[in-house]
Each structure stands twice: as structure tokens, then as C-alpha cells.
């Protein structure tokens, strides 16, 4: 359970990015955070794992107030929060495997990580995750050799190998094509359900948010202007979040998408391995 109370952030430039935000995310809930650029979505997520220091307010993960932790305790708290980034943020010159194992750095000692001598259980888990997203044959490829969708899947593995209770997801689909975007969002949702994770997903694409989130929070100028289920997002609500615009094409048509979802599910990932393709009935 994540409890955010009165979260305020004022940047050194004087900009008030967040004006006292209150959010509670129960275990296992997938919450989408929508809002225009500059509304403070990224700031909310980064305050939770303190990549950005909050100015005031409290953030409690399982009743531990993260805003009061010292350095060592903060590191321990960060281990339980996996983060998935916009533009993937993989270390490009490290291999896929090294990038995934980066998620274990909080659990191993310095020399262990320096010599890349991770415990066998970590290696097993890394391969299991890579296999789950269809990239285990790429383990020794350098991250910059991968396509956008593949990179984001590696990013997801890196977050999950931390064994997190909470996923912080920052614009996961910002530089992906529409099809890959859906696959990535579906993967995140499936993995959250499998592992009973809660997730906060910052996302620009309102339709994707409606398709994959159970709850939507709309942010505007650092304030919450909507908090409710996806199907209550009316043109009036969207106008209150983003401003005046013709929203008729954005609102999800529930039945159409549902049938399309099933069709998409058959070809979840294009895995370039013949035995897998055969299993999926593709060859």
C-alpha cells in the first residue's frame, strides 16, 4: 500500500510543480497518471523513489515514510520500487544481461558487482525474465543493438528483477510505435497481475491508459483534477485535465477495443526463434 499525503515540490527555480497531492494506491492496483506536459506527472513518480527530493508531505510505502529515510535506508527502500523509464534509459554500452542485473545492485556487494559475479539465483531469475519477454537469446548483445520495443522489455526485466512491490513507470511508450506500445503496456499489465504488483504509470496516451489501467488520476498544474475509473473519463473530464479540445475520437469505444485485444493477444511478441514461432502457430 502506497500512501502519498500533501506532497509538495518546489524546484530551485521557484516553480511549484506539485501543490499538495494526496493519492493512495492499494496493493495490486494499476493506476495511470495522465495530464498535459508539465503537469507534474514525472515529479510525482520521482518523488516516490526520491530521485527528486520532495519539498514537503509524506510518502509511505507499507507504513515506512520514505521522505525521512537516511542514505542506506533509502537504498534499501529503492530496491523494492522498480522503475521503468521513458526512452528506456538502458546503459547502452552494457550488455542486455548486465542491464538486467543492474536491478540486483542493491542486493550485492561492490566487489561482487565489479567482477560481475552475481549469485546463481540472480542469473537464473534474469534468464527467466528475459525468456518471459522473449529476449533470452539476446543476453550478450549490447543494449544499443536492440530495437525500441526490445529495449523497453529489457527495461521491464531490470525493474522486475529487483523483486519490487511497486512499479514506477514513466512514459513507457513515449518513443514506440502504436503496436509496440500496446504490447509493452499489455506486458506490464500481465506481469503486474502475475506478481500482484501495484503500478503507477505516467502516460500521455489517454486511450492506452483507458485500455490498461484500473484507475486513472488526472493531473493539471500540480493538482489532482480527476480520480476515478477509466470509463468515467468523459469529454468534460478530459477538458478539465487538458483544456478545450474535440475529444470524441479519444474516448475509448469499449467493445471494439475488447475484441481487438483478443486478436492482438495471439501474436504477443515476434520472437525470432523458430521453435517459439511454431509454438505460437506462426510457421
Amino acid at each position, binding site marked *: 500500500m502506497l500512501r502519498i499525503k500533501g506532497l509538495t515540490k518546489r524546484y530551485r527555480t521557484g516553480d511549484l510543480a506539485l501543490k499538495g497531492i494526496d493519492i493512495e494506491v492499494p496493493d495490486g492496483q494499476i493506476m495511470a497518471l495522465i495530464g498535459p506536459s508539465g503537469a507534474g506527472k514525472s515529479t510525482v513518480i520521482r518523488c516516490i*523513489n526520491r*530521485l527528486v527530493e520532495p519539498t514537503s508531505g509524506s510518502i509511505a510505502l507499507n507504513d515506512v515514510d520514505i521522505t525521512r529515510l537516511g542514505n542506506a535506508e533509502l*537504498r*534499501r*527502500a*529503492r*530496491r523494492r*520500487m*522498480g*522503475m521503468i*523509464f521513458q*526512452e528506456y*534509459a*538502458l*546503459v*547502452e*554500452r*552494457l550488455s542486455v544481461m*548486465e542491464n538486467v542485473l*543492474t*536491478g*540486483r*545492485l*542493491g*542486493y550485492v556487494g*561492490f566487489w561482487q*558487482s*565489479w567482477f560481475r559475479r552475481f549469485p546463481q539465483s540472480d542469473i537464473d531469475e534474469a534468464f527467466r525474465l528475459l525468456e518471459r519477454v522473449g529476449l533470452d537469446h539476446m543476453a550478450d548483445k549490447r543494449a544499443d543493438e536492440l530495437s525500441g520495443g526490445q529495449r523497453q522489455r529489457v*527495461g521491464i526485466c*531490470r525493474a522486475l528483477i*529487483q523483486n519490487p512491490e511497486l512499479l*514506477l513507470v514513466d512514459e513507457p511508450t513515449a518513443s514506440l510505435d502504436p503496436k509496440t506500445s500496446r504490447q509493452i503496456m499489455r506486458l506490464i499489465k500481465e506481469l503486474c497481475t502475475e506478481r500482484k504488483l501495484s503500478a503507477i504509470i505516467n502516460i500521455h496516451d489517454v486511450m492506452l491508459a483507458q485500455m490498461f489501467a484500473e484507475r486513472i488520476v488526472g493531473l493539471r498544474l500540480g493538482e489532482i483534477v480527476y480520480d476515478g475509473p477509466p470509463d468515467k473519463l468523459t469529454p468534460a473530464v478530459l477538458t478539465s485535465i487538458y483544456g478545450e479540445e474535440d475529444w470524441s475520437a479519444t474516448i475509448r469505444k469499449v467493445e471494439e477495443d475488447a475484441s481487438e485485444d483478443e486478436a492482438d493477444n495471439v501474436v504477443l511478441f515476434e520472437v525470432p526463434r523458430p521453435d517459439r514461432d511454431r509454438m505460437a502457430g506462426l510457421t
Partner: protein
Amino acid sequence: MSMNVGALPRTWRKPPLIKSAWLRWTLGVSLVVYLALVFETTPVNWARVWEGLPRGAAFLAAFFPPDFVSRWQEIVEGISESLWMTVVSTVVGIAISIPVGIGAAKNIAPAPVYYFCRAVLAVSRSFQEIILAIFFVKLFGFGPFAGFVTLSFATIGFYGKLLAEDIEDTDPAQAEAVRSSGASWLQWLNYGVQPQVMPRMIGLGLYRFDINFRESAVIGIVGGGGIGATLNTAFDRYEFSSAAAIIIVIIGIVMFCEYGSGYLRRWVQ
């Protein structure tokens, strides 16, 4: 286009680098005047130049044929001393410049550390190798040790500054991602920063090896040991053909280092 009847054709020119026409012309004219004055006042005695030509030719002729044999022992000793200086000073210099360079990167180091390390780099960079060599020869006496200290010191300034700048240019998103996993500071450096700067730093290390060998030949002349000292002795004894041999050996080794390091750098990228 018929739509634009009546509208004047709009002209466009690239805006000048210096906006104010007055300043632009003043700068241009004063540059020309200054160059004219410089040429006017450079004292060249053409008669003496003419007289000196045959003497210069005789001097150059004395280099031929290069004599590798009579001073071969000294040449080998000088070269091996220079190579020793180069290798050791490059390794020691880089080893010291890594912590200094990390401390001098603004996006990593806290302000006091940053200013201290920047000061170290500034001091190291403000003296040319020859000046340092003269100073260290006075401090430690003639010989390769003074040369080694000189080159190590100069390497710190060079390598530390470029390392600091390269760290400042790294992609913060990649480093942030490593930090968000709960990595310690050293793990964060090792996983988030080092991979981003490594290829360039290997290349620069090889480049510095090059420079250090060339400098080792120069600082020998002021007493820093190595092949430079051998060369200086040959000139002092008017053994120009031996000097020619030494110069050819230096050129050969420098070219070898340069091609070698160039090849390795391409391979690292």
C-alpha cells in the same frame, strides 16, 4: 505565383556573425592594419639570409649519411630509458588522474571537492612540460626520474580534465536508472558512468602514451634523461651523423606509436 501579385519579392541574406556594422568594420580594418604593421617591422636582413644559405646547406649535409654504428650503444640505452619513462609515467599519471577527474566532474562531485580537483588540474595544465622538467631536474637532479615525474604530472592535467569533461557529458538518464535500483555510489559509478566514458578514455590513454614519448625526447634536452639527453650530447660533440641517426629512430618510434594507437583506438570504439 499569381496569388502574390502586388507583394514585393522578399530578399534574404544570412545574418552577419557580428550584428553591429560599425564594430564589424572596425575589427576588420584594424586586423588588416595590424598585420601590415607587423610585416613592416619584422627585421629581415635579406643579404644575411643569402649569405647564410650555403652554411645552412653545409650543416644539413653534415647529417648525411646518418651514423647508427658508432653510438649505437648510447642510442639503445637512451631509447629504452625514454620508453621506460613513457610507460611508467603514463600508467602512474592516469592512475592518479582517475580520482582527480571524477572529483572534477560537476555533475558528480560536491562543490568543495569539485573546486579542489579543478585547482589541481589547473595547476598541472598551466605549466608546459619543459618548464616542469627544468623545475623537477633542479629538484631531483639530472636523469630519468625527473623526466618521469614531469610526464606523470603533465598526464594528470591532460587526462583528468578530459575525463571530467567526458563524465559531465554522460547521459544522466542512464545513470539515474542505475541509481533508482538502490545501487551504492561506487556501484553507480561502475555501472552508470564508467561504461559511458570507457571507450573514449582508452583512446585518450593511448593518445597520451604517444604524447609522452614525444615529450620524453624533448625533456631529455633540459636534463630529464632518455633519448633527448643522448641527442643533446651528440649535438654538443658536433657528431651530426649520430644525431641524424637518433632523430630517425625517434621519428620511427613516434610513427609506430601513432599508427599503433590509432589502430587500437578504432578497434575500441
